[in-house]
């Protein structure tokens, strides 16, 4: 991955093009800005501007109960802090993201290593394991609700009576396992791409030096997978902080709000018409993501360069 969102090292300009043709610099003639403008305008208008507005509306009383919007300072934040929702939502979301990223990457890497060789058999099963990625997260949630319900299929097969989705401690782990299951195919594909990028003579050389499969994995494959790992861990961690559908479909945030991640809270509170309060939570999500993403990307990029 040559370009992550945050660049840790500035790249030296590689090509010193002489600027002689015409009065304008070459780039302006050959690759004019107006090719990029529509994208920049749409992105700014419908992504950046709402995110900027999100630094104002949490400090107002915007709701379906007020005709006009007035500035109220930190009221919304004190409300969610005082009733304990804020800390709980941060804790739940971070834990969810961490576990989901671990499961998704572990499953993906194991699958990639199992299906590495380019045989017909492997190509077929890669598609099979990619299937959950194609099924919507909401649908995935319902499938697992039917499987894991106390009256559901898993208990019927095992002859048990376990409330898989009813524990205030373990249900969060179960839901992150489902998240990992849904997205493992994408991680697998990216790890496969990383494995394919390892030069064959490197593995050959390791074999000539008498390295076994384990040794080859830890000394050659794993370090060479660093860019794939960076991409996978970043997207998995950040993506799962933005989770909604799987949790909504399996638990709806329960039991006893033990799986209430940021977006579930926003969904619920927005439905009650408390827009500014939902917006306050959205601002917190934004700040938490930034606080996690920047050190993560910088750290992983540095690791890549060290390996």
């Amino acid at each position, binding site marked *: 991955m040559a370009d992550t969102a945050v660049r840790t090292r500035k790249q030296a300009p590689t090509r010193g093009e002489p600027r002689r043709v015409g009065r304008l610099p070459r*780039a302006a003639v*050959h690759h004019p800005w107006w090719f990029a403008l529509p994208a920049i305008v*749409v992105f700014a208008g419908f992504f950046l501007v*709402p995110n900027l507005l*999100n630094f104002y509306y949490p400090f107002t009383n915007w709701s379906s109960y007020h005709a006009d919007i007035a500035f109220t300072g930190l009221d919304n934040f004190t409300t969610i802090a005082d009733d304990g929702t804020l800390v709980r939502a941060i804790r739940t979301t971070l834990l969810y993201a961490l576990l989901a990223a671990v499961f998704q990457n572990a499953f993906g890497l194991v699958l990639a290593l199992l299906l590495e060789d380019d045989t017909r058999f492997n190509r077929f099963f890669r598609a099979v394991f990619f299937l959950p990625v194609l099924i919507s997260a909401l649908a995935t949630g319902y499938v697992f609700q039917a499987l894991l319900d106390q009256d559901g299929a898993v208990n019927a097969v095992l002859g048990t009576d376990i409330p898989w989705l009813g524990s205030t401690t373990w249900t969060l782990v179960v839901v992150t396992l489902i998240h990992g299951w849904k997205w493992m195919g994408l991680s697998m594909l*990216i790890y496969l791409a990383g494995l394919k990028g390892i030069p064959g003579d490197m593995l050959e050389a390791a074999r000539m030096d008498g390295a076994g499969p384990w040794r080859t994995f830890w000394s050659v494959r794993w370090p060479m997978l660093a860019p794939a790992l960076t991409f996978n861990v970043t997207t998995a961690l950040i993506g799962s902080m933005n989770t909604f559908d799987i949790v909504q479909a399996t638990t709806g945030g329960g039991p006893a709000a033990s799986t209430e991640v940021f977006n579930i809270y926003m969904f619920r509170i927005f439905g009650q018409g408390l827009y500014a309060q939902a917006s306050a939570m959205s601002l917190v999500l934004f700040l938490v993501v930034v606080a996690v993403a920047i050190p993560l990307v910088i750290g992983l990029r540095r690791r890549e360069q060290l390996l």
Partner: protein
Amino acid sequence: MWRYGRPALVLLLAGLAVGVPLWLVLVTSAKPQAEAIRPNLDPPAHWQPGANYEDAVAQGEMLRGLLNSLLVVVPSVVLVLILGAGAAWVFARRKSRLVSAAYALCISGLLLPPAVITIVMELRQLGLAGTRPGMIAVYTGMYLSTSIFFMTGFIRAIPMELEEAARIDGAKPFRIFARIVLPLLRPVIATATIMVMLYAWSDIFYAFFVLGGGDRATLPLNLYKVASAQLYLNNWHLVFAYVVVMSLPMVAVFLVGQRKIVSGITSGAVK
């Protein structure tokens, strides 16, 4: 031993992890309501897939949902691809501080969460709340980062000489873009298409805020409605009929673009 152990393990994992859930969906969607109340892995005693899908079409407003989904997702994907390709071309070829800054800003959407609540506010002020153009604008804004990121990485790997050769023949930028850059982008377009489709086709979160329920509800919103009625109706058979119909288009897109998706991910994300 590993020679046989590995395929055996793959088969076992595939059967347990993918086969069981898939089987559950397919058999339940073919069962009569009475059998489907407690979802299990038994094959239906009485097969009635046709009746269930008819019910889902009638009660769950499946056709309208499908149409609504298409009317929102297709324009979003097209816009994301066209706008993204244009921007990626400029970002990949020009070198200056301003370009780097604009690029960094445009792919910030890969990491940052969309501010969904204030999007609603903005759309209301623009008169786009609850409308398809509003939904399309939101999806386009959200997923542009993905396509710009993949495409810029890909264009950087295309030799400049191809463009230069056309330029010497007198081609203007638009012609070069349309005739040389876009065709070369085909693999990464496939990747971006499936990524954006994956997100937009199955999205319920943003659709809930922007479109709400009503006449313009997309398939996932309808599925949510059908499943939320679950408490009173016990309609697992309908829920899973819905799941099948919602998933088929994505599976079809994947099967068509499979090869290119893999090569696009290889060159775009992992280098």
